[in-house]
């Protein structure tokens, strides 16, 4: 672990640089690049980790994460998803109050990701503090209460997903289709700036969403047309992230 240049650090009341051993009793860690011996079985791995924590084997955690601990399957015979869930289960062996997950879903298929996300939500519901490091913005947006975007080792933005996305310069996108296409070909309307036409849809960008939507609907009503589909999309976390990166690059 890097030594801090200044200040103090505390995790559950323990200083990681002094109380490493005590901290391990309340901290669970799942690393992105970690492994277990090829021939170890899930049951043995759990028994091994628990014995070093001075606990009886927590096979219930394996069952909770869908790993059959009675199985004779060895680590190298498990799928990537099963391995990830096994590592997560092992990190929870000591009933940690804080869990650090480093890119936990990298390399997983759609089903594996969904199952893993469900496991993380379960933990969150159980009151465990989870620090998740990820490059997947959609994952961060759907799982995290608070997000810190780190660029070149410094926090560039921090807050709830809504706070972070709303703090950006990106505009809200309004996509609209009417019965008689009265708004097409598109043009700027008040604060709604026309972006493009995709088949029968017109796409506008705006900063003041409420004002722009009202302008568009007023125009539809004035033309005696009716709305068939209306979508309002706020800038995603990914767009905000790219904006921050580009901002950093310009600086």
């Amino acid at each position, binding site marked *: 672990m890097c030594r801090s240049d200044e200040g103090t650090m505390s995790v559950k009341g323990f200083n990681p640089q002094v109380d490493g051993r005590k901290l*391990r*009793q309340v901290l669970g*860690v799942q*690393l992105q*690049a*970690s*492994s*277990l*011996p*090829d*021939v*170890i079985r899930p049951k*043995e791995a759990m*028994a*091994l*980790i628990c*014995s*070093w*924590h*001075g606990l009886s084997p927590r096979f219930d955690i394996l069952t909770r994460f869908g790993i059959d601990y009675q199985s004779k399957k*060895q680590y190298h015979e498990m799928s990537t998803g099963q391995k990830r869930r096994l*590592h997560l289960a*092992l*990190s929870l*062996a*000591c009933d940690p109050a804080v869990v650090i997950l480093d890119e936990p879903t990298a390399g997983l298929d759609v089903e594996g990701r969904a199952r893993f996300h469900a496991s993380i939500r379960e933990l969150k519901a159980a009151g465990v503090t989870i620090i998740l490091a990820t490059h997947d913005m959609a994952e961060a947006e759907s799982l995290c209460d608070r997000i810190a975007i780190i660029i070149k080792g410094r926090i560039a933005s921090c807050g709830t997903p809504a706070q972070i996305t709303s703090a950006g310069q990106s505009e809200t996108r309004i996509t609209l289709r009417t019965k008689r296409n009265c708004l097409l070909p598109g043009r700027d309307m008040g604060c709604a700036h026309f972006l493009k036409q995709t088949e029968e849809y017109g796409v506008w960008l705006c900063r003041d969403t409420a004002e722009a939507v009202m302008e568009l609907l007023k125009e539809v009503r004035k033309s005696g047309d009716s709305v068939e589909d209306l979508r309002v999309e706020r800038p995603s976390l990914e767009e905000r992230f790219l904006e921050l990166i580009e901002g950093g690059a310009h600086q």
Partner: protein
Amino acid sequence: MKAFLKHLLVQLKMDIRERGTLMTYYLVPLIFYFVMGAVFSSTNPLSRQTLSATMVIFSVTMGAVMGIPAPIVKMRETGVLRAYLVCGIPGWAVLFIHSLSAFLHLLIVSIIIFITAPLFFGAAYPKSFPAYFLALFILLFSSIAIGIFIGVAARSQSVGMMFSQAIFLPTVMLSGIMFPAAMLPVPLRLFGWSSSCNLYYELIFRFRKLG
């Protein structure tokens, strides 16, 4: 202590499942022992005096120097060691348990050779059993220490294999267990002294005297 014993038990179970471990600790040394034992004892009856000791030295050296480093380097390369550390298993314990399991496997092979060499090849029993086993334990400790050192020092499995070969081959070829070192040309004899561990050389003589 309970954790330590549990870890040792799991390690031994894994060793039995691991083909590479079985090959370097048991299969290759024992096949070599049975083939060379038959050849040595039939071509040179005098070799029966030292057969048990030389075959034990070969097996222990091979198991320790060739067998121990690879799993340690692999553990570091694949992230097993990292996973152990973050789960609260100390690094020294991982190394110590590896050494202990290697010690047990090599001791088993040594005992197999010690018991079967007189039965199959008419090899002589040592004059002093305690001295023989004391020398065996010293050989085991020193060989395992070298194996662990290579495993810790080597940056990759290929470098580890190179180090192992560089120590194992001169040790076996030039230290006198295959043929008397005195018969070697002077440069090779000196190389044998300098490249292979002096400790091995001394131990081989001790073994011979005891055998």
